[in-house]
């Protein structure tokens, strides 16, 4: 586990890495969720028009 240590800067390095990856993942998740919800809304409208 020594490779995970960056001396006295371990906390600083890993918190930066963690925050960056969290934001990257959140970006993908939120963008996909937005697209899916808008597609769903259009489909619902199309279905309602057909009725």
């Amino acid at each position, binding site marked *: 586990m020594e*490779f995970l240590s*960056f*001396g*006295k*800067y*371990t906390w*600083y*390095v890993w*918190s*930066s*890495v963690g*925050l*960056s990856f969290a*934001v*990257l993942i*959140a*970006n*993908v998740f*939120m*963008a*996909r969720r*937005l*697209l899916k919800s*808008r*597609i769903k*809304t*259009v*489909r619902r*409208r*199309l279905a309602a028009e057909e009725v």
Partner: protein
Amino acid sequence: MWEFIHKLGSPPHFWRLSGTMVPWFGWIALVLILVGTVGGLWIAPPDYQQLDAFRIIYFHVPSAWLSQFGYVLMALAAAVGLVWRIKLAHAIAAACAPIGASFTVVALATGSIWGKPMWGTWWVWDARLTSTLVLLFLYFGYMALRAAIDDENRADRASGLLAIIGVINIPIIKYSVEWWNTLHQPATISKLGKPSIEPAMLVPLLIMWLGFTLFFFAVLLIRARAELIIRERNKKWLRDVIGSD
């Protein structure tokens, strides 16, 4: 060339093209970011002064680049949308804002985390830091303005103007380290002709830069598709595409 640009501005063509490009951009970005992370955290040698704390730059620099690049792209797209009344351009501008804002947060936060052990403080009202904070507020202002206006066309015009006016902040961020006495160091990577960074440290940084940039475009295309749905919801092509998927 003009034919290509004209074709790209067509929403149905953009919808098809973006659907093909998102996985390519996304997977290549993922590989590059993983390779860059390994290179930056474990292969690059420690800095002679900052030791391992310098490794934060592998996340800070690409984020700072995207925070500014995202804003310039947003302003350019808004200008194209306002001048030529291209809906797709407004969709791209609107899609840039949340991504750019998120990378501005990462740039500010990782800079602050690096600043604590290096400068002895989390924050100083330094010209570079302050102008980057203003950039974050510009992104928030752009998104708040869009959210406040119900009519999509009016929201596009008003927020587009704000994006264009706010672009003045980008050269201020860029040259803040030269115009004022700041704690923040001047440019290191853009001085490729006169390198001030060791190649073993530079290569992972360039890989991360490319990975983050491709990632930005992958997310941008997904968000632009979502924005396009609002603007084209009554068009037959969109109903056909979404209805048949």
